């Protein structure tokens, strides 16, 4: 079965030519490729959206991982936000806290929806539920947000990678942030081309990000990288809506991400051997959690 689009350029061209939303092209492609009805597909995405809502709700009540490395930051952020004095703005801190909430639940072995992966599952819902308060979308528009995000993720997964072990964190949180940014554009009434610009701007600022989880756990620095991925997505969306464009076309940025991932040493691709995992404190935490010889020093 021939896909309706193989890259972002084809996706945007088709949306423009047929005067359709990117989410609509994604839904049509899903119907075509998997031979399922529109209703069926919408119901499944609605269920995924519900899982995301429940995860955020749970995280905002406060969860802690078994290792004790992460948890409770979403609660701190929401309490801070409610005081009304945030420097970076209410929406941004709301997005950050909800992204953190999702990843704290993930780290605590709770139920989440991978978007595109579990380690990067906070960015798309975090931004969605923050932007929701500003734009008041319908339930269908919220479901469409996930299809738009999915369309961009689909291109990255097939043309580059969404795996930290293969391409580093840029492939996970980088992709998630780009996907979120593109989806914000559609919900805010921007054009398909602006979605493409937003994705490119976001991804350009995530290039080179390595995957260096302390003790191999999806906790440090993953939770905070989701926070910054969400912030990056919102800011890039604003830039694209303002009319800022990317000098390097979106598909070429994705290509660059793939190339960078290929040349990343294995120590920085989810092996917990380099980067933050290899710092004295990172090693100390690892030995504290899993026992064995204490290497390095720490608090």
């Amino acid at each position, binding site marked *: 079965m021939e896909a309706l689009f*193989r890259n972002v350029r084809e996706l945007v061209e088709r949306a423009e030519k047929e005067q359709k939303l990117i989410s609509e092209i*994604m839904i049509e*492609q*899903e119907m075509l*490729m*998997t*031979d399922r009805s529109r209703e069926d*597909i919408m119901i*499944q*995405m609605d*269920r*995924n959206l519900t*899982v995301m809502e429940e995860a955020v709700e749970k995280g905002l009540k406060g969860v802690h*991982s078994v290792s004790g490395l992460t948890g409770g930051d979403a609660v701190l952020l929401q309490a801070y936000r409610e005081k009304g004095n945030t420097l970076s703005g209410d929406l941004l801190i709301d997005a950050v806290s909800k992204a953190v909430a999702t990843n704290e*639940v*993930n*780290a*605590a*072995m*709770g*139920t*989440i*929806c*991978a*978007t*595109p*992966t*579990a*380690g990067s*599952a906070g960015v*798309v819902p975090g931004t969605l539920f923050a932007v929701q308060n500003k734009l008041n979308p319908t339930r269908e528009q919220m479901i469409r947000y*996930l*299809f738009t*995000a*999915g*369309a961009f*993720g*689909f291109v990255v*997964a*097939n043309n580059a*990678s*969404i*795996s930290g*072990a*293969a391409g580093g964190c840029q*492939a996970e949180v980088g992709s998630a942030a780009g*996907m979120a940014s593109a989806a914000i554009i559609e919900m805010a009434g921007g054009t398909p081309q602006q979605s493409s610009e937003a994705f490119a701007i976001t991804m350009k600022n995530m290039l080179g990000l390595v995957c260096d*989880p302390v*003790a*191999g*756990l*999806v*906790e440090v620095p993953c939770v905070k990288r989701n926070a910054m991925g969400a912030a990056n997505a919102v800011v890039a969306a604003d830039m694209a809506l303002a009319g800022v464009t990317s000098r390097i076309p979106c598909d070429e940025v994705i290509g660059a991400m793939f190339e960078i991932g290929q040349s990343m040493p*294995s120590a920085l*691709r*989810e*092996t*917990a*051997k380099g980067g933050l995992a290899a710092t004295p404190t990172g090693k100390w935490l690892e030995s504290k*959690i899993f026992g064995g010889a204490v290497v390095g020093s720490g608090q």
Partner: protein
Amino acid sequence: MKFKSVFDIIGPVMIGPSSSHTAGAARIGRVARDLFGRQPEWARVHLYGSFAETYKGHSTDVAIIGGLLDYDTFDERIKTSFEEAQKAGMSYEFIPETGHVDHPNTARIVIGDQESEMSMMGISIGGGKIEITELNGFPLRLSGNHPAILVVHEDRSGCIANVANCLYKYDINIGHMEVSRKEKGHMALMVIEVDQNVDKEVMDELTELPNITQVTRIAD
């Protein structure tokens, strides 16, 4: 295209913390269980690459055992799968390997009971998606996304035609098919991905065909 569905990207719904190392691992375990066709009594799991380095932190071991117990990626029982395995009478062992493999997230699962044993190699390619790359020494490519039939047969002429004819009789469309063998004239394997689940009746008929040794299926 490796990723065909938007739900490979927005999904799966799963127990954390890692789509590749937890959800993908559970899926690899579950396909092994499917192919074995029953609850194994023992499991020996060899882990390679990133799986070998980080399996404890990602609960890859817990997830693979969950899969071998037939749990889906979102099944809460994954968290306590080691205890569940004990209840089900399955012993297990994890062996981190240092050897080089093509994909960083690779697991070789050897499972068995008193009757037989089976060896399968699976890779987790990101976002919870997996591929099966080897079965009992036969190289193959199986996504686990579609219903599939695996036919072990003698490497003789007519086998493939007979199987295809049988599927045609029941109006089952073949989406993807691969044939491999270790050595000419000996044992061979057909991997057939189909569009709908295959009934027991069809399975029985396939098993009765000449030169067919074993038929197993993976349901959707």
